C-alpha cells in the first residue's frame, strides 16, 4: 500500500528554517533609516535657511552703514578734512563685526582708515564674489571675500561718495562673517541635538510599532510551524480584521480541512486494512488444491472482482467416499460479503456431513443461515454430491444459475433443478428440489457464478451464457489441463480490460474415459 507512508512523510518535514533578520527588525531599520534621512534633510534645509536669513540681515546692516558713511563724509572728502573723516570711520568701526572702514578719494587713495598707517596708500578691495542682490543702489557693491590681513571670511561693501551728482570717492567697509558662522554652528548644534532626540525616540517608536504590527505575523508563523510539525489541532488566534486576520482565518480553515483529510485518509487506511484482512481470511477458506478422485479430473478457478468478493467454492470429502462440492455467490461484497461467505461455508460444511441428500443439506443450511444472516442478504449455491464409484451425481440448486453437462452422446445439457437462494425465506417458505444424473465417460460437469456470464466489456455488453457455452464446447476438445485457462482467456479477450464487476468462479469435473 503506497499511501500508507504518506501522512508521516508530510508531517515529519525538515526542521523549520531559523529566522535570520525578522520582519520586525527589518521594519524598524527601514523606519529608522527613513527618519535619519528625513531629519538630516530637514536640519540641513533649516540651517541653510537660517544662514541665508543671517546673511541678508548682515548685508542690510552693512549697506546702511556704508551708505551713511558715504553720505556723511561727502562734504569732508571734498575739502579733505582728515579729522572729520577719521571720526566717521571710527563711528563705523564701533560696530563689533566691522573689519575695516575706509574712505578713498577719486584716485583710490586712502584718505581715512581704521588703520591710520595706511592713509595715503592706494586702497585695493579684496577679490570676492559679488552677492546677487535686488534693489542695490547705483554704484554700490556687496561681495563675499577674504580679508587679506586676517584671512577671515568677510562681506565687503562699497558705496560711492557723491556731492551734487559729482563722484568724490568711495566708502569701503567690511563686516566679518564669523558672527553668522557662529550662529550657524550654534543652530546646527541645536538642530543636531533635536534631531538626535527625535531619532532616538523615532527608532524606539519604530521598534515598538513594528513589533506591534508584526505580532500577528509572528503568531501566524508560530502556528504554521506547529502545523508543519504535525499538530493539526493548532488554531491561530488573530482577531484583527485586516489582511492578516483574513490570512489567519483561512489558515485555520486550511488546517481544519487538512485535519479532516488526514482523518479520512486514516479511516480509508483502516478500511483498506480490514478489507485486506477479510481477503486473507477468505483466501484461507478457499481450497488450496483440487481433490484427487479416482476416475475424475477436477479444476477450479477463482478471481475476485474487488479485494473481497462474495463468491466461493468448496470441496467437502464425505466419510463414505463421496465428494461434496459447491459453487456459491453471496449477495454483497466487501466485508459483509466476506462475513456471509464465511458463515455459509461453515454451515454448509457442517450440514454436508450430517445430511445425505443435497436438498436436505441446503434446507438445513437455510434453516441455520436465514435467521442469522443480515436482512436482505442471501446466498445462491449449487451444491452437488458425487459418488465416484457409481458416477452418480446428486445435486440441489439454491437459487444459483444452472450447471451444464457436456457429453459426447447427449451434447450440452443444462442442469437446473428448482430451488431458492439461502437466507431469504423462512423455513416454511423455503423450497429446493433434488436432482440426480449419471456422468458418462468423458463428460464434463461445469459449475460457475454469474461473474462469468455477466462479465462486461467497455460497451456494456454482457459475455452471456451463449458465448460461454460456445467457448466451453470449443475448448472441451483440447486437453482438460488447459480448459479453465482457455475459458478465462476467452472472457478476458471479450472484456478487453474493462473493470471486472463481479467475482468469476469456475469449478469443472471431468469423468475420465472416451472422448
Amino acid at each position, binding site marked *: 500500500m503506497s499511501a500508507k507512508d504518506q501522512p508521516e512523510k508530510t508531517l515529519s518535514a525538515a526542521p523549520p528554517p531559523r529566522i535570520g533578520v525578522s520582519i520586525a527588525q527589518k521594519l524598524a531599520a527601514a523606519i529608522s533609516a527613513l527618519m535619519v534621512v528625513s531629519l538630516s534633510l530637514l536640519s540641513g534645509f533649516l540651517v541653510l535657511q537660517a544662514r541665508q536669513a543671517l546673511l541678508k540681515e548682515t548685508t542690510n546692516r552693512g549697506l546702511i552703514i556704508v551708505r551713511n558713511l558715504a553720505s556723511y563724509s561727502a562734504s569732508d572728502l571734498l575739502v579733505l578734512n582728515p579729522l572729520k573723516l577719521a571720526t566717521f570711520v571710527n563711528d563705523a568701526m564701533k560696530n563689533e563685526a566691522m573689519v575695516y572702514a575706509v574712505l578713498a578719494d577719486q584716485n583710490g587713495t586712502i584718505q581715512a582708515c581704521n588703520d591710520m598707517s595706511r592713509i595715503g596708500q592706494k586702497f585695493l578691495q579684496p577679490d570676492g564674489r559679488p552677492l546677487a542682490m535686488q534693489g542695490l543702489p547705483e554704484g554700490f557693491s556687496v561681495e563675499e571675500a577674504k580679508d587679506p590681513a586676517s584671512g577671515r571670511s568677510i562681506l565687503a561693501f562699497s558705496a560711492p561718495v557723491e556731492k551734487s551728482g559729482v563722484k568724490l570717492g568711495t566708502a569701503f567697509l567690511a563686516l566679518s562673517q564669523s558672527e553668522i558662522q557662529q550662529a550657524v554652528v550654534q543652530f546646527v548644534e541645536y538642530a543636531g541635538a533635536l534631531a538626535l532626540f527625535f531619532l532616538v525616540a523615532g527608532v524606539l517608536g519604530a521598534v515598538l510599532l513594528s513589533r506591534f504590527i508584526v505580532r500577528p505575523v509572528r503568531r501566524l508563523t508560530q502556528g504554521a510551524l506547529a502545523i508543519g510539525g504535525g499538530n493539526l489541532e493548532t488554531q491561530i488566534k488573530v482577531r484583527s480584521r485586516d489582511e492578516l486576520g483574513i490570512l489567519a482565518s483561512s489558515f485555520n480553515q486550511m488546517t481544519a480541512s487538512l485535519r479532516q483529510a488526514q482523518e479520512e485518509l486514516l479511516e480509508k487506511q483502516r478500511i483498506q486494512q480490514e478489507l485486506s484482512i477479510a481477503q486473507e481470511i477468505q483466501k484461507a477458506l478457499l481450497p488450496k488444491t483440487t481433490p484427487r478422485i479416482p476416475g475424475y479430473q477436477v479444476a477450479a478457478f477463482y478471481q475476485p472482482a474487488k479485494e473481497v468478493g462474495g463468491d466461493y467454492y468448496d470441496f467437502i470429502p464425505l466419510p463414505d467416499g463421496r465428494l461434496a462440492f459447491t459453487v456459491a455467490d453471496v449477495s454483497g461484497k466487501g466485508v459483509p460479503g466476506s462475513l456471509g461467505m464465511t458463515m455459509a461455508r461453515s454451515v454448509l460444511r457442517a450440514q454436508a456431513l450430517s445430511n445425505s441428500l443435497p436438498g436436505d443439506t441446503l434446507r438445513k443450511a437455510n434453516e441455520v443461515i436465514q435467521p442469522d444472516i443480515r*436482512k436482505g442478504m442471501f446466498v445462491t449455491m449449487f451444491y452437488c454430491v458425487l459418488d465416484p464409484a457409481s458416477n452418480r451425481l446428486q445435486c440441489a440448486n439454491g437459487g444459483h444459475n444452472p450447471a451444464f453437462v457436456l457429453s459426447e452422446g447427449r451434447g450440452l445439457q443444462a442442469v437446473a433443478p428448482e430451488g431458492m437462494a439461502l437466507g431469504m425465506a423462512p423455513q416454511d417458505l423455503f423450497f429446493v428440489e433434488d436432482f440426480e444424473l449419471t456422468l458418462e465417460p468423458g463428460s464434463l460437469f461445469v459449475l460457475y457464478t454469474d461473474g462469468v456470464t455477466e462479465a462486461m466489456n467497455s460497451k456494456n455488453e454482457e459475455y452471456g451464457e451463449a458465448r460461454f457455452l460456445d467457448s466451453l464446447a470449443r475448448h472441451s476438445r483440447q486437453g482438460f489441463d488447459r480448459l479453465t485457462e482457455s475459458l478465462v482467456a476467452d472472457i478476458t479477450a471479450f472484456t478487453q480490460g474493462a473493470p471486472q464487476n463481479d467475482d468469476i468462479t469456475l469449478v469443472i469435473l471431468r469423468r475420465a474415459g472416451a472422448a
Partner: protein
Amino acid sequence: MAAFSVEIKASAFGRQATVFALGGHLDAVTVSQLEGRFKETMEAGQYHWVVDLSQLDYISSAGLGAFIGVLEEVRSHGGDIFFVGLSPKLQKIFQVLGFLRIFRIFAAEEEAVREFGLP
C-alpha cells in the same frame, strides 16, 4: 450508465396502494436510496406496495436483497410487495433465485392493485 431513480406515488387504481417506479441502476451502492424510501413509506403506514421494474436497467443481488429485507415487516402489517414490469431477463433471474416462490408478479399495475382487494 443511468443513475438510480425511484418515484413513489399512490396508485391510480386504488389510493391505498403505493407504487414504486424504479429506474436506472440498482446495485450495492444505490440500494441504500431505495431502502431509505422503503423506511419512509413504512413509517407513513403504507404497506401495500406495487414495484414497477419496467424502467430498471440493471439490478444486482444486493438490489434484490432490499425486497427480501423488508418483506417480513410489510407482511406483518397485512401488506405485501407485488412486482410489475419485469423484462424476460428479470423474470428469469426471479425464477432462478426462487423469488417467484416468495413474490407475486403481475402483468399490470391495475391487476396487482386489484389483487390487494383494498376498499
